[in-house]
């Protein structure tokens, strides 16, 4: 069985934008944001660790997402904090692009028990 869930076709997420995948659909504790940054796709927990905001609505550029609320910055590749006010990383999920589909394999630590 193939791991993870197909969340979109590559042409459904424009460069510099993101979609959210419903937590209920993918079985995680938080919605997952799937980002297109210059044709590379990344997946992180959608909720900023600083205050409640959707990272999918953030500014996406050069491997970084900037939270739409207070501009805390997270690395798209691993969820690490690159700039305050955020101080805790966001969870990162695996992304597999096959032909024109994007599959997200949720981080096992973020699965709903």
């Amino acid at each position, binding site marked *: 069985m193939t791991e993870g869930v197909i969340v979109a076709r590559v042409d459904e997420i424009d460069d510099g934008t993101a979609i959210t995948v419903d937590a209920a659909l993918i079985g995680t504790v938080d919605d997952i944001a799937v980002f297109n940054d210059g044709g590379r796709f990344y997946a992180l927990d959608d909720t900023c660790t600083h205050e409640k905001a959707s990272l999918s609505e953030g500014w996406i550029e050069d491997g970084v997402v900037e939270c739409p*609320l207070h501009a805390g910055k997270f690395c798209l590749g691993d969820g690490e904090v690159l700039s*305050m*006010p955020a101080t805790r990383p966001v969870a990162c999920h695996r992304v597999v692009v096959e032909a024109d589909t994007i599959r997200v394999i949720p981080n096992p630590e973020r699965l709903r028990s």
Partner: protein
Amino acid sequence: MTTTGAGTRDPGAVVIVGGGLAGYTAAIQLRRLGHQSAITVVDAEPAAYDRPPLSKRLLDDDFSIGELAFATAGELGAQGIVTRFRRSARSIDPERLTVTLDDGDVLEADTVLLATGGRPRRLRVPGADRPEVFVLRTIADAAAIRGQVRAGTRVSIIGAGLIGAELASSLSRAGALVSLIDPVEVPLEAAMGPLLARELHLLHRTAGVELHRDVIAAIEPTNDVDYAAGTVDVVLDGGGRVRSELVIVGIGIVPNTRLAADAGLTVADGIVVGEDLQTSAPGVYAAGDVAVRRLPDGTLARREEHWEAAQLSGQQAAHGMMGLPVPTRGAPWFWTDRYGVHVEVVGRLSGSGEAIVREDGGGRRAFFLIEEGLLVGAAAIDDPNTVRAARRLIDQRVPVDARLLGDPDIAVRSLLTATRRPETRGTHA
């Protein structure tokens, strides 16, 4: 001293006086830049913590030092950053580079960073020292205000700048009966432009906050027997009296320059620093709200007080202390959260230039100021990405067309992409 980094200066043992955003950021940045010697942060506060929520989320449930702290003591320890919280610096010796604490301890340093911030400006009227009068700068101030406010509490807020406006929002949402007093008809015009300032100021009235355009003559106990002790009248210059159980003064800050002045450092409206954030005393640097920069032409820049300015100033100070090129700054940026809306502002929105308002079908509005074909400022309500795009247009000096900027069907980001040089982003043709 341990030799560190690739800079031209070894900071050696660093003592940072002030653990707010600028001081904390400088400490973290020094480590990121490879500095390995001792770093000690001294602050009278119980932790290094974030202050914007003090006004914005004052009455929220999760309001605690644990929530607001930038890092735990353990996390700081893991970075080799020693903290002396609940201690303040009594004096510094710029010759010997020592910092004497209030408990008599003397910290020896090779480099001292003054990030002493500011304190609330006091109201100078009779009664301003009464126990019903509060200010907001620290978590203790916030806790004191929280302890006084219940649904129905009458609160007068003096000053309708960012802090006063955010407090009015937080307190009115909690059911307090808020009066907001400011002599200016539309506060914050200089900071956010007349159009946005007016729109935001009207939100107070919509939320039921009583607006008074006046200055304060005095704060007097209420003689009316129907009122409990501890109720005061805020007496307005125009003759009005605003009955209040609580008065909060938010009329700006005064930079904490005493340590620097006592040590003989050059002080103006802040501690004067050069391009590398070094003060007039070699080995002593200053950053954050307290620092004021001398420009290459010899004049002094305006002292900045926004959150991001403090963060960037701390980063710059770390570079300066390491003898590394100091990163350049873009246009100043700030945000304010009130009445459920999130506002961002970048650059300059008042003064000369062509003002443009962009309105989409959903009622979202953005404000721009263009001068000589370049964007100089932008702001938006609940549309941060328009401001983030505008910020890059400003900093990269991308020529803009007023008609395109005003067209809600054209994403501001596309103006950036269209003119961005291909090499700035490898994946773009």
